[in-house]
């Protein structure tokens, strides 16, 4: 009986009696969700246009953040460093296209997936040779990212919104919006969607596949920079940051591998769901459950919708 009370009643009693904590949990879930969505977005961009499940997205986040901070350490002004980092990601995108994707064109998706593991290894090694393994502090204030918090009294306590989190939500939303517009309204965006639908079709309207690949990898690189700055500001910039990319996987599955809105909604569901789960139900299991909870949420959705919430319906023709 007691256990049933703890599962079905107690959490809701808590939500009622301490609404400030509920609001705080929802807010933190929202922030986490937006940040997950940002990582997931990097995956979706590449998957949509090239069918490559890019495992290297996580290390690209680390690489981008380290480049930014590393350049700044060498005396480059913050915004110049940011510009140079964007350039580095462009070079990386071109390099990936020339040296990795081109020789592997027309291979099955699992082979390309494997190749991105190779890329991950390469970037881990190269990144450590160039930047060393020491953690670095994100140059948040030099990039005019706010610090400190806004506190609201009330609801029987207080709700504290970190300014950096607010900034993260805004930046992530703007990026998502820009990408959505880019995909829907611009010529290149439409071309990207054409590639997603059919490589043949894209070729027939005169779009070079190589260019498309460079563009999506570059876009994913830019997303990686934003991710790196925001996550880095929340903790530190180190190679441990790549682990965080694994959080994007349940988000992707939930939202569907090919859907930008899916990545966002999936991110929010996972973010808010796991924070609520950990906060209200986690203590029953001794805590630390949010790591697999995200996957279980995703798995539950998949059983009913095997293509994710927003994924293109898998039509099996024969």
């Amino acid at each position, binding site marked *: 009986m007691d256990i049933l009370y703890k599962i079905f009643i107690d959490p809701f009693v808590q939500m009622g009696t*301490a609404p400030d*904590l509920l609001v*705080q*949990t929802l807010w*933190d879930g929202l*922030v*986490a969700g937006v940040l997950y969505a940002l990582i997931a977005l990097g995956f979706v961009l590449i998957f949509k246009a090239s069918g490559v499940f890019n495992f290297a997205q996580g290390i690209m986040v680390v690489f981008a953040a380290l480049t930014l901070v590393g350049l700044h350490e060498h005396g480059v002004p913050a915004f110049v460093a940011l510009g140079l980092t964007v350039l580095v990601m462009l070079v990386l995108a071109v390099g990936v296209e020339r040296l990795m994707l081109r020789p592997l064109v027309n291979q099955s998706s699992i082979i390309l997936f494997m190749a991105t593991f190779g890329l991950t290894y390469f970037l881990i090694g190269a990144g*450590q040779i160039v930047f*060393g*393994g*020491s*953690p670095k*502090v*994100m140059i948040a204030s030099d990039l005019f990212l706010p610090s400190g*918090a806004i506190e609201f009294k009330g609801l029987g306590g207080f709700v*504290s919104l*970190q300014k950096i989190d607010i900034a993260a939500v805004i930046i992530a939303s703007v990026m998502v919006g820009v990408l959505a517009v880019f995909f829907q309204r611009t010529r290149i965006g439409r071309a990207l969607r054409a590639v997603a639908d059919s490589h043949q079709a894209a070729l027939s309207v005169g779009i070079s596949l190589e260019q498309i690949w460079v563009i999506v990898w570059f876009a994913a690189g830019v997303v990686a920079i934003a991710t790196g700055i925001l*996550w880095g500001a*929340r*903790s*530190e910039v*180190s*190679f*441990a*940051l*790549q*682990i*965080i990319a*694994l*959080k994007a996987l349940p988000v992707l599955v939930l939202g569907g591998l090919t859907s930008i809105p899916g990545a966002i909604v999936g991110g929010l569901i996972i973010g808010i769901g*796991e*924070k609520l789960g*950990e*906060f209200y139900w*986690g*203590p029953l299991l*001794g*805590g*630390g459950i*949010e*790591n697999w909870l995200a996957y279980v949420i995703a798995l539950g959705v998949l059983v009913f919708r095997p293509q994710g919430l927003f994924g293109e319906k898998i039509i099996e023709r024969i």
Partner: protein
Amino acid sequence: MRLKHLALGLAVVTAAPAAAATAQAADGLYVPLFTYRTGPYAGSGIPVSNGLADYLNMLNARDGGIGGVPIIVDECETGYDTKKGVECYDSVKGKNPVIINPFSTGITLQLIPKAAVDKVPILSMAYGLSASADGNLFPWIFNPPDTYWDGAAAFIRHAADVEGGFDKLKGKTIGLVHLDAPYGREPIPLLQALAKDYGFTLKLYPVPGAQMQNQTALWLDVRRDRPDWIYLQGWGAMNPTAIKEAAKIGFPMNRLVGVWWSGSDDDARPAGAAAKGYSSLDINAVGSNFPAIQDIIKYVVDKGKSQVASKDKVGENFYDRGVMMAVLSAEAIRTAQKLTGKKQVTGEDVRRGLESLNITAAGWKALGLEGFAGPIHLSCADHNGHDAVALVQWDGTKWEKQPGMIEPIKDKVLPLIQSAAEDYVKANAGWPKRTEACDKSS
């Protein structure tokens, strides 16, 4: 092409260790160092690895080794990965190592059963298996100066001191924020025992490895439970994230205390001023204001023989931690040389040396490290010392040592060690009985 490659590889793998083994055994003291400067935990690994290697290299450059015999410093990169650690062990054990620093609790656990068989003493300084402090059951394992249980007990004593006595702990809530891995879970049994004895409530806040940098929900739990004190047993990127999150929920920083592995400069620096007041247990002094460390700069760093990124990293808390590991290793070898009267000592000799290790305050001074750490005195039965620990506090930019030392609560820790050691032996059926004789001096 591939076949040739494989053949070459096989040849290298088969030949290399054997060749090296014969070459190196004769003309020096072979001290392999398992270090890591790569991987997700490199942040904590780099400064310690640098201190460890630099001190031994300094002895070679300044004194020509120990007792005139050069030290062969051989680093093996583990990446904090147990698999590679075991690989390192297998590749060095044929070269007659005199002492091994595994520098990872996971690797230490692997080596504990092997050490007795291969006759190599293991120095796991302030990490590893708490129970291995029992010299009767673990003659080859040494973990001075404190176990994690001593650390947790010292933290409780510190909390009691601040609150105004152990009786004031009654009814208080104490939280443990820990890495959800054996290392992080280590203090739990002791804290549970103390909670019963002193009447405080223990709350556990586990951080899974994959969530190291994503601790928001956990700190919301902290905010709900409002513990009076929090003890932090974290590693790598978990520490700076925890400190930042603590600041975020407005947890009073002077009530947040970390174990000595949560006290790296890189742990507190990302939070900067917000971490002011955060304190960490410590077993070594901070800074480069010691003759021996100046010697390191002179003989090693300035000569470009060190891996440190810049000179100001020398003297950071974890750098000095590495130096301390090196000092204990070197002094154990020196003691072994004295005990046996030979210069070229073996692993078995150094084991005796460790059991007779005695560095007094004067001893530290003689080493050019006055006040660097408390006296270290090991014995046949006690491989740890359970010494008093220091407390350092972050002032917003650097660590400040707090006055006084904190004694662990020995009468609570020792029985627990005793029973844990016995449990270990029971679980490892066929554990060899100690046959090694005790030296008079130990």
